[in-house]
């Protein structure tokens, strides 16, 4: 199997097949990273981000010198593109409320308990949205998209220990915020 750098070299010479293979290899992780930044409410936008990223990469592939891994380069572009889009769509109505989507797969018995859970989940979702982008992304990758710490680290372009510390710090911050709002979660 050809390595990414061999495919990049072929794509730089205008080989569309090589570029198609790069897309096939990297489209899923690029989409996962975009979704982890934009959140559940903006999944169609994450697909748009993935498309824009590959179009950008195609236009700029000749300038790629191979000083970093191709995957790191493309994930960095994805991160910036998704954060830019998030800033633009922040005030637009989401396609679906994050907590509604969560509840759809975690039904709780009893209307009172269900209301309590919904309220707490809503508070948690709000708290998550106030965290720094990398913490939010790490949390969504790890807890929602079932990524391991290794994948979180790779997509965010940081060492594994840093990814672990993102998750640790995010949990600490969320604990404090929920406590401040008077929620218990045992």
């Amino acid at each position, binding site marked *: 199997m050809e390595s990414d750098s061999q495919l990049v070299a072929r794509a730089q010479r205008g080989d*569309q097949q090589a*570029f*198609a293979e790069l*897309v*096939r290899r990297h*489209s*899923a992780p690029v*989409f996962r990273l975009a*979704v982890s930044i934009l959140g*559940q409410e903006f*999944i169609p936008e*994450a*697909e748009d981000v*993935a*498309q824009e990223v*590959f*179009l950008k990469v*195609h*236009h700029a592939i000749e300038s790629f010198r191979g000083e970093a891994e191709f995957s790191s380069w493309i994930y960095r572009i994805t*991160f*910036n593109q998704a*954060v830019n889009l998030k800033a633009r769509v922040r005030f637009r109505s989401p396609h679906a409320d994050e907590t509604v*989507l*969560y509840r*759809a*797969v*975690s039904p709780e018995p009893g209307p009172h308990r269900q209301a309590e859970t919904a309220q*707490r*989940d809503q508070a*948690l*979702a709000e708290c998550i949205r106030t965290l*720094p*982008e*990398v*913490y939010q992304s790490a*949390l*969504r990758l790890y*807890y*929602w*998209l*079932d990524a391991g*710490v290794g994948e979180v680290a790779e997509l*965010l372009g*940081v060492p594994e220990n*840093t990814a*672990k*510390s*993102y*998750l*640790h710090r995010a*949990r*600490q911050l*969320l*604990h404090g915020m*929920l406590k401040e709002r008077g929620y218990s*979660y*045992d």
Partner: protein
Amino acid sequence: MTEMEPREAEIDSLLRRSMAAPVPRLPLDFDERLMREVRRSSQPLDRYRRILLTGYGLTSVVTSAAVMRGQGLGWGAISVMILGPLALVAAARWARRATYTTMRHGAK
């Protein structure tokens, strides 16, 4: 993961319960649609559009310089008035990139 203290384990289990939702995936025809778009954007028409835009930019610069010179402005002032806005655009792009880099590293 390393062992967590009880307080962290509680929030960990809350996050697991609360964030459990179907994992979204790209549509099966995503790669195909994207490659069609890639082929379309690398058509000669797009290259001509870029050449046309560059030509328009250069013509504007030369015309502006000629008009300003005709009005008696010195080359120094003309250069500042033409290069200033270009430098501003470049600086804004650089600042935006630097902000995101800081955002990423600031969270470490």
